[in-house]
């Protein structure tokens, strides 16, 4: 299943590395990444494939949220369907 991971927070060294290694730890494959930094504000959007992940997407929501809280970031994972529904006919 495809999902979207979004990371939002104050920019600093190592955010991308930390998030990517976290996803790797749970066997989540990253298919695409875009990231921008605007006035020290870091935004990253990833398209990921969770089909090889052993955890359910519901569990991953909790894991990423907790990891985000520890690093003062907002990290979330959502099924891709919601974005497709809203922005594609």
């Amino acid at each position, binding site marked *: 299943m495809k999902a979207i991971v979004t990371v939002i927070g104050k920019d600093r060294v190592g955010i991308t590395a930390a998030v990517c290694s976290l996803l790797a730890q749970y066997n989540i494959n990253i298919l695409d990444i*875009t990231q921008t930094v605007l006035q020290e504000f870091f*935004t990253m959007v990833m398209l990921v494939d969770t089909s090889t992940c052993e955890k359910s*997407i*519901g569990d991953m*929501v909790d894991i990423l949220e907790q990891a985000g809280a520890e690093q003062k970031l907002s990290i979330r*994972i*959502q099924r891709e*369907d*919601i974005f497709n529904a809203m922005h594609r006919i």
Partner: protein
Amino acid sequence: MLNQHEIMQTIQMIDQQHLDVRTITMGISLLSCAHSDLSTACAKIYDKIAKYAENLVSTGEAIEKEFGIPIVNKRISVTPIALVAAAAETDSYVPFAQAMDRAAKATGVNFIGGFSALVQKGMTEADRILIRSIPEALSTTDIVCGSVNVGSTKAGIDMDAVALMGRTIKDLAGKTADQGGFGCAKLVIFCNAVEDNPFMAGAFHGVGEPERVINVGVSGPGVVYHALQDVKGQPFDVVAETVKKTAFRITRMGQLVAQEASRRLDTPFGIVDLSLAPTPAVGDSVARILEEMGLEVCGTHGTTAALALLNDAVKKGGVMASSHVGGLSGAFIPVSEDEGMIAAASSGALTLDKLEAMTCVCSVGLDMIAVPGDTPAETISAIIADEAAIGMVNAKTTAVRIIPAPGCTVGDTVEFGGLLGSAPVQPVHPYSAKEFVSRGGRIPAPMQSLKN
């Protein structure tokens, strides 16, 4: 592939603009629960609701988590109890409400609707018992909602029922006086009630509906408000287009959630209700949308036109986004549940008369309005008759959810808490309609009913 802008736009809508799915409502037919023995009938009702809606809340929460979209309420609507209870040999239907209350609590939902009667053309004995039971039923239960349909375009208005409902509302307010007449927030008087409404307090599962069904109500006044901020000063053509596009997005999300819930609960998908449903939270107000169009305060001249545009554009945008649209589908203007409406009513800019005019162009009606506790029952009946007439002639749903707050006068505020918010007590006309209401009988169906 989705671009970053689109993804961040959705995240912003959810995070900052209060985008949510307002309710997933499971409609359940209780027709199979009719029984001449009261306790058997109540037991059957409890068992059926508890079984059918067993996984409703957990499924809603799972969808909420996976899609990252809040689903604020999970609710149940059932067959109008007057139909189910008619077979029972009893002179009070309070035990039915209590069975509904217990069953709903067992499933974890926050409201159950359907303590209802449809009396637009007259009352059966069961309808009379149900209406007589309303004050006790709604004051001794916590999450049961009731409704009574007193008129329709096809049948006219049952003025005997209208008179009765004025007295019932006063009784119910008296029985819940310690909570500011809160019981009345759980009772809606309809004209042209719809059978697939997912929103409370007026939801019930109509007799034309299947055994069980999933209906979804979306929300999103904050998103529309935000979108309109980007088109300040531009002509109404642009305003309408902006609202349509926004409503399309909101509804697509509702449709997705509805289909997912339907699949997981193995229950047919019924409809998506396109209503813009506000909450008392700042930034989630329909009144503020109208003000964003250029009105100094909601309720001033121009408000009805602004609401007409909004209501129409929401439907046009939403209708293509969903395979089945139904329920009430329009903009809601509940006073106590809308931060901007509360402010406008408190300042005196938004009067009952203006609200009545606004109900001609939107769903649903005079909703969550507090009036002085000493308002006569006949005046409340006359207010209901006015609303029902608007619904009847315009072939649309109208409703009255009015709270004569015991011991309160104009200038007081009644607190209901949570999604129900707080209502400033609004003045009613002091002149009597007693003779008018006491005539009884039926107001005949209008010419609009003769379409065949």
